[in-house]
């Protein structure tokens, strides 16, 4: 992590409004930059000293890193290390869990996501999420994809195009174009997960959070999803939580390794960020011994 410019960003007062967030969304979706995987890609999330609590229990502490635009960032680490907990703080999913609380700074394009004026619904429109278990709605394939755009106020006449474009982006169109009106629950697990991706891209988010999206899928379906991520990362910023280190190595540009720290007094475990770097470096020449032990399979 580099030092001086970040410090300046920290000094920006967090007095932001929903309008700021709206404006930023426009800027973000309007920027058609080439998918530069260089370290200089613009910062989307700036995370400083982030901790997540469930009641008085601190699940994750002191996370620091930046997420860059049009890159795939992978969170890896053993079970219970807080990867998913951190991921869910990016689209304010913790709002739904009673007693969950986020401390520290989580800036999205310089705006504090947990600021008093920020509307969680607007946040989730820009920062989509794909879940561990495919969760299509018990509706038709068409209605699943059209659900988000309809909420966002898309006109009926636009829906057909949006549905087709989204399903094409998710590499599912050819398989389902003849049965759009059939129930989504009749699809295979891999198809359902791609439908969930189509449903997410249909609302044109800037960021897509993926919480172990392939853990319920077979290797062929997993391969499809990974190819898909590679294709769409030119348009989206992707953060993926995965248990599968090969997957992290294959799909990600940057990688964050989390582990757990046992608190002997209370016998609880808190997740900590060990290392965050370019994926290549993390897997070939990590600077922390714990990362090396994990990626080489000696631990976890």
């Amino acid at each position, binding site marked *: 992590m580099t030092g001086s410019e970040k410090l300046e960003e920290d000094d920006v007062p967090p007095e932001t409004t929903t309008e700021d967030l709206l404006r930023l969304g426009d800027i973000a979706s309007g920027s058609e930059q080439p998918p530069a995987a260089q370290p200089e890609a613009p910062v989307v999330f700036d995370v400083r000293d982030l901790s997540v609590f469930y009641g008085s229990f601190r699940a994750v502490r002191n996370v620091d890193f930046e997420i860059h635009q049009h890159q795939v960032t992978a969170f890896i680490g053993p079970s219970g290390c807080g990867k998913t907990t951190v991921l869910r703080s990016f689209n304010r999913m913790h709002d*739904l869990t009673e007693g969950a609380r986020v401390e520290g700074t989580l800036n999205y394009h310089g705006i504090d996501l947990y600021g008093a004026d920020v509307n969680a*619904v607007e946040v989730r429109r820009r920062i989509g999420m794909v879940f561990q278990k495919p*969760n299509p*709605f018990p509706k038709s394939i068409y209605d699943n994809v059209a659900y*988000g755009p309809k909420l966002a106020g898309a006109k009926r006449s636009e829906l057909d195009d949006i549905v087709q474009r989204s399903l094409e982006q998710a590499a599912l169109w050819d398989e389902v174009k003849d049965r759009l009106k059939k*129930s989504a629950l009749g699809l295979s697990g891999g198809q359902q997960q791609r439908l969930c991706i189509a449903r997410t891209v249909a609302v044109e988010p800037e960021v897509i959070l993926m919480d172990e999206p392939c853990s319920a899928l077979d290797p062929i379906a997993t391969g499809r999803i990974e190819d898909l991520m590679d294709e769409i990362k030119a348009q989206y910023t992707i953060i993926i939580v995965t248990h599968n280190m090969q997957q992290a190595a294959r799909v990600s540009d940057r990688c964050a390794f989390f582990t757990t720290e046992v608190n002997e007094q209370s016998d609880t475990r808190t997740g900590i960020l060990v290392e965050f770097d370019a994926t290549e470096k993390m897997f070939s020449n990590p600077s922390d011994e714990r990362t090396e032990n994990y990626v080489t399979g000696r631990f976890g």
Partner: protein
Amino acid sequence: MSAVSPQGLAERPAPSEIGSDLGGRGRGGRTDQAFRLLALLAGLSILAILALIAFSTIQKGWPAFSKLGTDYFFGTQWKPRSGQFGILPLVYGTFVVAAIAVVFAIPVSLGIAMFMTEVVPRRFRFGAITIVDLLAAVPSVVFGLWGIRILAPKLDHIFGNGFFRFLGDIPIVGNLFGDSSGRGFMTAGIVVALMITPIITSVTREVFATVPRNDKEGALALGATRWEMIRGVVLPHSSGGITGAVMLGLGRALGETIAVALLIGANPQISANLLGTGETIPAQIARQLSEANGLFRSALIGLGFVLFIITIAVNVTARRLVVVMDRRLKGA
């Protein structure tokens, strides 16, 4: 898991012995058999009780059925003093009161259930549930007395004025809102609505609680507000269960006796005026059975059989509806 100790390995039987004791009835056989028998008896007792109810009501009601025939089942005049026992006015009143009750109870119950599953913070949830359940513990006759002493005079005042006066002047629809004395279908229906709200609420609440968190988060992650999530995910998911809950409430409303007997006005008639007086099957039975004899008594017991058939039909329809709606939801 700790590693298997060497001793543990040594204690295993030789391969040739494994499986030698799998045959026979063993230890589990007899207790399972006894349990099965007990469960079977319990199940059969329900059928036996139903059959006995049907048998005795048919038997005691038979004189009315055979002597009056279609005049009984399709007659539109229930005037015991002049020997007219046409049950349709009572069937009509029973359904009208139940329908009014369900119409009022559905939105209130769904609202309370949504409030309790999606809005109330966890620590207040138990208290809220207890309060609604307390409503179910209030005796029927107390509801009836409250209806007579407090609600009916107020409704009489309201029905006779303003909005309802205005409704009464509209052609066709106006027939539904005629003269009122404060007692009648509407008053009874409103009180019964209060009485069936707890059961509809608690079943609906349990149905809402079974909606997978995964599905709800899916909607929210797409930028749905809480209400959009409820409308798009929770309600469709629960449609079968809500139907079941409403039918359960309808069943109760059809059979409600004392409160209705106090509030309905005891005037068997088929009238479109929802604010006017009427009579229901259970209310009529409760009112008259102790003083009736001969054909009148037989006609009243026959009414019991008719009500029995109506509630069974409602329940069967409810079950089928739930199955159909679930199937449509899953898209099979």
